[in-house]
């Protein structure tokens, strides 16, 4: 396993989803450096709540080990931009009408770990659109 880290970009913009996950490959170690998510809510009336979790993907232990809440709700028919990173200042109200920053732990994640970003209310899984952009510090594998 290589010990040298490199930063990689990961993206998931598949349509019609409010729940997305990324799994650390079996021969990699990941540190989340930045997570940007853009949630475009449908006209279904409900307040969405963005949440980020990390769990070890064990069948006997399904609870998250990291649980970060945006802490601000998003109503129907809006587009909000959420920026997670270590060292961010947590904002408790939307800035610039549509932007929020939230802190992340500075943690290297073991292989198999699952990073999940989702609407904890599950307001409209079929018509909400959740786009995720990750910047990951990755080590291991073959460069």
């Amino acid at each position, binding site marked *: 396993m290589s010990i040298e880290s490199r*930063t990689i970009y990961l*993206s998931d913009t598949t349509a019609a989803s409010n729940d997305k996950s990324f799994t650390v490959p079996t021969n990699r170690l990941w540190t989340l450096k930045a997570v940007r998510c853009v949630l475009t809510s449908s006209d279904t009336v409900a307040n969405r709540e963005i949440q980020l979790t990390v769990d070890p993907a064990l069948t006997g232990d399904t609870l998250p080990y990291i649980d970060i809440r945006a802490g601000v709700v998003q109503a129907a028919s809006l587009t909000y931009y959420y920026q997670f990173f270590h060292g*961010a200042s947590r*904002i408790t109200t939307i800035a*610039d009408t549509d932007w929020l920053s939230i802190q992340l732990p500075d943690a290297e994640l073991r292989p198999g770990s699952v990073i999940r970003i989702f609407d904890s209310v599950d307001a409209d899984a079929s018509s909400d659109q959740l786009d995720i952009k990750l910047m990951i510090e990755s080590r291991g594998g073959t460069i």
Partner: protein
Amino acid sequence: MSGYRTVYISDSSTGVDDTTGAIPGIVANKTLTVPTDRYWRILSLRATLTAAAAVGNRRVAMTIDRNDTADTEAYVEVRAGVDQAASTARYYLFVPNVDRLTAFADTDWLVNPIPDMELPPNSVIRVFDQANIGTTGAPDDLDLRALIQERGGKG
């Protein structure tokens, strides 16, 4: 690959200058691109925006993208979050691990935290006015000063 060194990078060109070509309609807009054989870590990014007389509130933002025509969305987006009116000069500092200010200090200074990470080659750092205020006839002026920890290349 050689070791780390700190480099100073400046773009104080005036007017509508955009180092990678103008984005239509946006006046205050500058980018710095990580060279193909380098890795960059932003230690400090200082932006000075001098707003011209065109009426409107400027809203400065900083983004990082992967410089891919098939994937043009930002991966990092940090908003200054405070408006800047016409005919004023404001100083914005983007650095890792600082507290975010929600109003200008000392009448004209604002600081925002950014992620502390190494950027791969070809990544694009962009500072711009999201509100798209100004005209080419009376442009705003945006100056960038970046302190970069760099590795790669021949040193």
